[in-house]
């Protein structure tokens, strides 16, 4: 497979996943904002969404940090490279640059998503009915993954698509968890009270994991359990552990297919072991935010190493 094609496939699926995760971040902000403010200065949900999205630096510093402005920035702003519309534009541009490597069904899914998103009515929907808009974005992600799953050849191209999905998803689950860090909980007494727990459950909702969590842990909505579910539990489809497992799986498939292993294979195994061998207590006592920051760094390094191993930058 052409290196350029592999590069495009990898980024194509990253962008689709990113669009969906931007929507999930907003879902968290929206739900947290529905909670009554119990403490002065606690209304920082949208600011934390912005920080966790990683796009705060391109946000107009004079613009208010309210739902309308932040959501519009995360969805439609053309100067924000990770805005949902830019994610779909980039995904479609990648797809168009290698039409031969994806199926007609995948192309139609991507093409339709962008065509719909460009309609003026979508701006109104996002403004007036944000939850409905968020559902729409999540559906587009499902549509893309579904058509991919049911139509594409299980060759190396499939592995690059899946690698993109899970690298991006891992990054985004880490960001979702980190929103909690950015939401200021000024006094230790507040940790573990009603508001705090509610905020933790919103993390689960945004990860579409509330029901799944309930099946696994029943009604123990403690931060400890929730963080465990999204970080270390390999059965949770958005957990860091599951993402790492999938990444090693697809890298192994590539190694078998090509008959060659690279540095990236060692790095992936290392990341996977970190997640299978860590304990939640240890992570909390060393600092959840620090753990998540370290993880995001490793994940970025892994993404770069994939590019190096398969000549994304040329030979």
């Amino acid at each position, binding site marked *: *497979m*052409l*290196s*350029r*094609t*592999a590069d495009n496939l990898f980024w194509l699926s990253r962008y689709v996943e990113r669009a969906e995760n931007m929507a999930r971040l907003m879902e968290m902000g929206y739900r947290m904002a529905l909670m009554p403010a119990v403490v002065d200065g606690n209304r920082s949900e949208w600011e934390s969404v912005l920080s966790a999205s990683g796009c705060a630096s391109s946000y107009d510093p004079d613009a208010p940090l309210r739902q309308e402005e932040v959501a519009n920035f995360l969805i439609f702003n053309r100067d924000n490279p990770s805005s949902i519309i830019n994610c779909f534009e980039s995904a479609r*541009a990648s797809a*168009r*640059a*290698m*039409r*031969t490597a994806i199926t*007609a069904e995948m*192309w*139609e899914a991507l*093409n*339709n998503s962008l*065509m719909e998103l460009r309609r003026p009515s979508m701006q109104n929907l996002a403004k007036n009915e944000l939850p409905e808009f968020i559902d729409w974005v999540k559906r587009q992600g499902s549509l893309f993954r579904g058509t991919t799953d049911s139509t594409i050849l299980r060759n*190396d191209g499939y592995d*690059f698509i899946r690698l993109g999905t899970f690298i991006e998803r891992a990054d985004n689950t880490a960001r979702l968890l980190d929103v909690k860090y950015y939401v200021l909980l000024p006094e230790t007494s507040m940790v573990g009270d009603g508001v705090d727990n509610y905020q933790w459950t919103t993390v689960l909702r945004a990860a579409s994991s509330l029901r799944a969590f309930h099946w696994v842990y029943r009604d123990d909505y403690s931060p400890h359990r929730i963080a465990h579910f999204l970080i270390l539990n390999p059965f949770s489809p958005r957990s860091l552990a599951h993402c790492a497992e999938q990444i090693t799986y697809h890298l192994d498939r*590539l190694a078998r297919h*090509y008959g*060659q292993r690279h540095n990236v294979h060692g790095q992936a195994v290392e990341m996977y072991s970190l997640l299978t061998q860590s304990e939640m207590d240890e992570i909390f006592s060393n600092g959840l935010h620090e753990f998540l920051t370290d993880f995001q760094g490793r994940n970025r390094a892994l993404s770069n190493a994939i590019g190096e191993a*398969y*000549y994304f930058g*040329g*030979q």
Partner: protein
Amino acid sequence: MFNEMKMDDQVREPYRALVDWMEASGPEVLEQKRLEAETLFRKIGITFAVYGEGGDPERLIPFDLIPRIFTAGEWRKLDRGVKQRARALNLFLYDVYHNAEIIKAGIIPADLIFKNDAFEPAVIGIDPPRKVYSHIVGVDIVRTGPEDFYVLEDNCRTPSGVSYMLENREIMMRMFPDLFKSLRIEPVESYPDMLLKTLKSIAPPKCDREPNIVVLTPGAMNSAYYEHSFLADQMGVELVEGQDLFVYEDRVYMRTTRGPARVDVIYRRIDDAYIDPLCFRSDSVLGIPGLMNVYRSGGVAICSAPGAGVADDKAVYTYVPDMIRFYLGQEPILNNVQTWKCGKPDDLKYVLEHLGELVVKEVHGSGGYGMLVGPASTKEEQVAYAQRIKADPDDFIAQPTLALSACPTFVESGIAPRHVDFRPFCLVGDDIRLAPGGLTRVAMRDGSLVVNSSQGGGVKDTWIMSD
């Protein structure tokens, strides 16, 4: 004017079943079908960009639902005529890059070839595999009467439009399954297979295995990009850009996830001038440095071969009937349109005196740009154009304004006749192959004779009826 569907108020025989069906269905059903077809095109993403117009870079090419239909007998003549032409053009190309017998025989003036911008000194004496230069010849044909077909021009470099021939058929089969069941329409879907066979058959001398074939595109911003990706996909070969290829020692390789992979045959959709910055335009970023050296030493085959463009120049066109006589010893089956060469003083005088009646074209132009359609032009335009001709007469040819045949077409006011032309795609390799069909282009504006998609022309499916 010849109406493809009606003659003497009678529906012509090949169109009878279609007309019956249309009358039985009624205008609402047809309008519904038209909207469905447009949605399908947009969904699949079949688009055609127009250079220099701004706006939507992925404009839809207008697709007209009413097919253009040929009888089996009409097609037999076209098939023979097109293959004859493709054969003669390739013999001519081999000749001018070797002994130039046709020039020595005094049939074609030497200056017209050797001073031609499209003549490529870099390939003199090189023998391309099977001595073929133009592997895909697109012949533009117009019709003026029941038996009167004329060749308007030849396209020997990289004629585009074949993806429309295939996709139009796909859409038509989805929209009108009943018609396809009841009528016997020749299938065109074998074209990609025939193209692949043709490309395999021209593997270079150094290739000692199943050849690795690629389609080389300038990239997703090119107006015909959809077609490039479509053909690569249909043949199951890689679609590459210049940046994906490189020369190492005496071979061409592509950059893959497993490291370099050798390439044997390149079906390029990039002009000669851009394929190798070391040999041609040094500012080209689309090409592959060193490609021509590999080509010369038999390490790679290029389709169409560099230099093939000298055969489809509009001034050389006028000599194609002579080429057929000279190389094949046959009379041309398809005639040329009468052409005045402004380089000749008598012709120039005639052209300047009759600008209002003629179609004048730039010799090296294509895509319908820079031409003057006499009857549709204003006095001022004619005066300005006359200045251009006088400044460089060699650069212009003129032809009579032909009464192009018209085919019923959906327009805003309903169904009305619009002018059409026809481009079949002839493949030349170990054999000469022609799929039974081609691209029918239609001028969407009333009275317009310009069918180029870059000038707002549309397309139709073309049906060849079986006997």
